C-alpha cells in the first residue's frame, strides 16, 4: 500500500507568523545559529492499491503520486497562498 507524503508550505512571499514565532522562541532558547524558520503542514496519506488495467504496474508510484497531486491541488493546499510537493514515502513506497 503506497504511502504518499504531501508537504504544504506558505509561498515565500506570504508572511509566516508561526515560523517567526518559532524562530524567536528558538533564539530565546539559545539556538542562535538559526537564521530562518518556515512552518508548514505535512500529510501522510495511505492509498489502497487497486487492480489496474493490464500494462501498468499495479499500485505504481506514478499513479499514487498523481492522485496525491490532485488531492493537494483540490483540497490540501490553497494555491493562492501555498505551494506543495508530493512524494512517495521512501520508507514504504515504491520510491
Amino acid at each position, binding site marked *: 500500500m503506497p504511502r504518499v507524503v504531501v508537504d504544504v508550505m506558505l509561498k515565500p512571499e*506570504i508572511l509566516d*507568523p*508561526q515560523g517567526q514565532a518559532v524562530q524567536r522562541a528558538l533564539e530565546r532558547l539559545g539556538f542562535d545559529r538559526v537564521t530562518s524558520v518556515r512552518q508548514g503542514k505535512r500529510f501522510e496519506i495511505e492509498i489502497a492499491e487497486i487492480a489496474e488495467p493490464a500494462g501498468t504496474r499495479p499500485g505504481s508510484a506514478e499513479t499514487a503520486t498523481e492522485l496525491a497531486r490532485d488531492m493537494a491541488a483540490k*483540497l*490540501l493546499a*490553497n494555491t*493562492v*497562498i501555498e505551494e506543495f510537493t508530493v512524494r512517495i514515502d521512501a520508507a514504504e513506497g515504491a520510491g
Partner: protein
Amino acid sequence: MTRIGVVTFPGSLDDRDAARAVRLAGGVPVPLWHRDTDLAGIEAIILPGGFSYGDYLRTGAIARFSPVMETVISAAGRGVPVLGICNGFQILCESHLLPGALTRNNHLHFICRDQRLRIESARTAWTTGYRPGAEIVIPVKNGEGRYVADPDTLARLDGDGLVVARYLEGNPNGSVADIAGITNPAGNVVGLMPHPEHAVDALTGPGTDGLGFFTSVLRGLVRA
C-alpha cells in the same frame, strides 16, 4: 416578506445569530442545511461564522465543497446577494468568489473584542444603508482573520473600490491594508471578518451598528 437563507454547515456557530439579525431587520430567515441544493424563494444568502468541519485543514477549505456551495456559487453569479461573515468570508475566498485568503492572525491568538471599522464602500448590496466613511463598532472574533492577497489583487481592490471595510484604532489580526471586508466587482458578494450579527441589540452586543448590513440588503431586494 423577503426570505434570506442562512446556511448551516457542520460546525457553523453564528447561524442562529445571523438568523436573529435578519429577523430584527425585518426579513424572514430561512435555515439552509449544507446538503441543500434547492434555493427556491431565497433572495439572499448568508454564510455565517463558526468553524465549519472544525476548520482543521484551513478555514473554509472543506465547507467549500459542500453541496450547497455549488448552488451558492451559481446564485452569486446571477447577482443574488451573498454575505460571508468570518468563516463565511473564508469560505467565499476558498470558493474563489472573492480573491485572496484569510490566514492565521499575526499574533497567533484567537481574539474577541469590540472593533471600530470604517465603511469604505456603501455601494454593495449589504452596505447601501451606511454613509461612505461611516465609523461603526462591531465585534471581531477570529483566529484566522488576517487577509492576504498578491500586490496586483490589492491594487485592483483599492483601485476599483472593492474594499468594503477597514479596521480603525488597531488592526486586530495583521490584515493587509487593514482590510476587514471586501466585495466582488458586482457588489453582490461581500466577505466580512467582523460580526455585524452580534451588534444588532444593545443588550447583547456593543451596540446596533451591525444592523445596517441586514437592512441594506432587505431594502435593496424590496426595491428591486
